[in-house]
C-alpha cells in the first residue's frame, strides 16, 4: 500500500526549493485566514484547483473527497445555525438562520476546505525528505524535521494496523456500534490496546534501526540531493508575497468580510 501522498511529477511546483514550498504553504494559510467572504474566497480556491491540476494532484484531491465533506459540511452547518447576527430568517432557541449566518457558515466551510486543500497540494508535491530539509533551512533543529517526516510515514501504518484490529475483534462477535456515543468510544478499547502495543513495539524496532544507521551522529547530516535556489523560486516568492498582501488588503479594506457579519466587529 502506498502510504504517502507524494505524486512523482515534474511540474514547476515540484521543482521549487523545499524552503519555498514551506513558505508557499504558510502564504496559503495566511491568505485564507484573512478572508471570510465566500465570494472573495472563490478565486483563492480556484487558484488551488489550478495548482492541483498543474501538479497532477487530482487523485489525491479525489482521495480526500469524503474528508472534505465530513469536515466542511459540519463546519458550515454549525456556524450557520449558531451564528446569531443579521436579520433572522429562522429564529428558534437553538437554531438561528439569517443571510449573514448562511454566508458566514459557507465562508467558514470554504476556509477549512481551502486549508485542507493547500495541505494536500503541499504533500502531493513535496517529499517528506524535502520537508525535513526545508525545515532545517528555516532554522528548525534537524531532529524536529525528522520527527515530522517519521510521523508522516508512521500514521498510515498505524491506521492500517487499526483497521486490521477492528476486523479481528468484529470476527469475535464484537459490536462496535452498540450503545450511545460515550459507550461507542469506550467500546474501542479492544482496538486501542493492540494498536498502542504494536506502535510501541514498532517504535522500539525503529529506534534500534535508526541508531544502527547512524542517526544522531552529529547534528548536521549531509544530503545527497543538492537543493539550490533558482530564478523560479524568486519569482514564486514574489508571487506568493503579492497574494498574501492582496489577501491582507482585502481584509483591511473590508472586501474579505461579510457585510455586517464579521466576528471581528
Amino acid at each position: 500500500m502506498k502510504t504517502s501522498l507524494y505524486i512523482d511529477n515534474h511540474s514547476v511546483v515540484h521543482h521549487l526549493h523545499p524552503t519555498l514550498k514551506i513558505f508557499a504553504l504558510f502564504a496559503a494559510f495566511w491568505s485564507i485566514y484573512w478572508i471570510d467572504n465566500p465570494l472573495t474566497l472563490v478565486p483563492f480556491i480556484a487558484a488551488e484547483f489550478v495548482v492541483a491540476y498543474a501538479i497532477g494532484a487530482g487523485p489525491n484531491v479525489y482521495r480526500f473527497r469524503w474528508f472534505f465533506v465530513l469536515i466542511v459540511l459540519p463546519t458550515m452547518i454549525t456556524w450557520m445555525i449558531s451564528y446569531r447576527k443579521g436579520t433572522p430568517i429562522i429564529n428558534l432557541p437553538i437554531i438561528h438562520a439569517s443571510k449573514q449566518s448562511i454566508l458566514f457558515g459557507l465562508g467558514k466551510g470554504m476556509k477549512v476546505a481551502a486549508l485542507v486543500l493547500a495541505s494536500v497540494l503541499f504533500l502531493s508535491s513535496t517529499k517528506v525528505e524535502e520537508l525535513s530539509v526545508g525545515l532545517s533551512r528555516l532554522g528548525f533543529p534537524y531532529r524536529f524535521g525528522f520527527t515530522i517526516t517519521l510521523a508522516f510515514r508512521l500514521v498510515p501504518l498505524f491506521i492500517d494496523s487499526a483497521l486490521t484490529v477492528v476486523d479481528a475483534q468484529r470476527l469475535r462477535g464484537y459490536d462496535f456500534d452498540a450503545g450511545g456515543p460515550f459507550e461507542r468510544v469506550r467500546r474501542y478499547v479492544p482496538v486501542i490496546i493492540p494498536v498502542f502495543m504494536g506502535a510501541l513495539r514498532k517504535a522500539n524496532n525503529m529506534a534500534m534501526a535508526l541508531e544502527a544507521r547512524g542517526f544522531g551522529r552529529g547534528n548536521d547530516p549531509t544530503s545527497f540531493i543538492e537543493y539550490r535556489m533558482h530564478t523560479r523560486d524568486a519569482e514564486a516568492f514574489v508571487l506568493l508575497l503579492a497574494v498574501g498582501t492582496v489577501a491582507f488588503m482585502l481584509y483591511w479594506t473590508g472586501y474579505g468580510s461579510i457585510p455586517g457579519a464579521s466576528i471581528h466587529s
Partner: protein
Amino acid sequence: MKIETPIIGGPSASGIDEPAVRIEELTFTYAGGREPALRGINASQRVGEMIGVMGASGAGKSTLAKVLNRIIPELEGGEFAGVVMLGGRSIAQAQVRDLAGEVGMVFQDFESQLFSTTVAHEVAFAMERVGMPREEILARLAPALDAVGLRGFEERDPTTLSGGQKQRLAIASVLALRPRVVVLDEPTTDLDPQGRAEVFALIRQLRQEGISLIVIEHEAEELRQCDRIIILRDGAIVAEGTPAMVMPQVELLEECGVNAPSLDRVARMLGIARHPGSVADAEEHIRKMLPRTPPSDAVSGREVGALVESKPILEIEAVRFGYPEGPRVLDDISLTIRAGEFVAIVGQNGSGKTTLAKMAVGLLAPDSGQVLLEGRDRTKLRPAETAREIGYVFQNPDHQIFADTVEAEVKFGPRNFGLDDREVESRCAEVLAAVALENERATDPFLLGKGQRQRLAVASVLALRPRLLILDEPTTGLDYREQRKMMKLVSELNAAGVAIVMITHTPCLVAEYARRVILLRAGRKLFDGRVREFFIQDELLRTSSFKPPEVTSLGRRFGTVALSAAELVEYLQGRAR
C-alpha cells in the same frame, strides 16, 4: 578520500589479519531478567567468513547480534561483561550510531527499517546521517543498488515494493556504508517464498564477494552454505563447526529447537554417517548404501488420506474482487471447503490468499459471484453472525490480543455472543486445555512468548466453536519447537472434526499436514488437488517460486513423492529389501 573515522578504541591494530569480530567471555543479563541471555560466549569471525547462528526463540541469537553494534547494552540495558572487538579493536567506548559504518544490521521487520519515500533516499539515509559528502554518496548509491538487484528502482516508493525487495533494500542501505560485517537477524521470516529466494540468493552473492556475514536463521537448510554454524541454547554455545560437522547432529539440533535439514534426517535414519550437502549428494550416498533402489526417472506416490467428500461448509462460486482504484485481486475463483478437510492455500504475497479468506468470513464482499455458507448467501450475513461457523486467526496474534489476562481474552468472544457464565467458563477451560495454556489463565497475554500468544489467538477463536478454522500463516516467526506445537494443535482440531484452511508459505507444513492444496497466482486458482499431485507439478512450482521440501525432491529421484523423512526412509528400505 577518508570518509569516516570509526570511534572504536582499545589496542591499536591495523586490522590486517585481525578477525572481523572477536568476542571474549561475553555474559549479558537483561535489566529485570532472572537468567543471563548470553553466558560466557567466546567466538570469532574471520574476514570474509559466513557464520550461521541457530537456536530456539530465547536462546540468545538476537541478543548476540545486538551486542555487535552496541544496541546491547546501549539501547537495551542490563548487566554486561566481556569484550567485543571489531577488526582487533574494542568497541566498549563506542555508541551504536558510531558503529553504523562498522556493523551493518538488517532486522526481521523490514517495515521498521525503511524511513524514506524513495529507494534512492533510503540507501542514502545512513550515508547522510554519518555526514558523508554528496559526491561520495552518489558514487556508492549505484553499486549498492546493483548489489541487491534494485538498480532502476531509485525513484520508487519503498512501501510499494514487495517484501523481498524491501528486505533487499534494507540490505543495500547497510551495504552502502561498506561495513566490516553484515549481520542479518532472521531476514526472511516475514517473506514469501519468492522473497526468501531473493534474499538468500543475495546472501550467497555477498558471500562470494567476500563480505563477512553473520546470518541468524531458524531453518537449517538455508544455512548449509555457511562456513561455520554456531548453535545456541539458553545463551551458551553448545555446538560449533562446519555444516558437515553440525548438521548431522539431528538430536542435538532438535533439543536446541532447531529444525534439522530433512536430508540429514534421512541420512541419519538410514545410518549414513556423512552430511549430505544437497539433494544430489544425498542421492549419491543413498545409492551407494542401498544399490537396489529404483532408477530416478519413475514418478509414483501412494495416495493416502483421500480428499474428503463430506458436506460443504463454504462454497465460493466464480468470485471476482478488486479494491477501489486497484487491480483485480480475485479473478473467477471457485472452490468448496467441506467438513473435516485440511486445506493449504499457497501463493506469493499479493496472490489473493488473504483477500479470499476475508471474503470467506465476510470482511469483504465479492464484486461478482457468490459465497455460500452452508448453503446460505454469505453476503447477507454480518461477520459477527458467521463467527460461530468460521473462525479466522490473523497472522499476527497481537492484532487481536487486548485483555489483561489469558482467561479474559478467551472469554471475550463467547461473551460477545451473550452466552451464560457457565457456558463461557466451560468453553474457556476446554480451549485453554486444547492449546496447553491452562496454567496461564491469570497471566498477562503480553508476557507470553510469540508461540503462546499465537496459540492464545487460536484459543480465543476456538471458544466460538467454529466448524471451519482459517489460519493465516500460523507459524510465521515461531521457532521449530513452537511450530510443531502449533501444528500438533491444528492437527488435533482437524482430527476432532474442525475443517482447517491454512494459508502458508512453508512447504514442509503443506507436505506433512495438509491433504489438499490450492495454489493462487495473481488472483487466479492455478491448482486445486491432492498434496502429492501438487508436488509433481514441476513447472507450476517453479513459476510460483514454491520449492518442494528437499525430502520430496529426494524422493522424486527414487520414484516416489515422499512427504516426510520417515515416509521416504520407509519407502527406500522397503524397496531395498
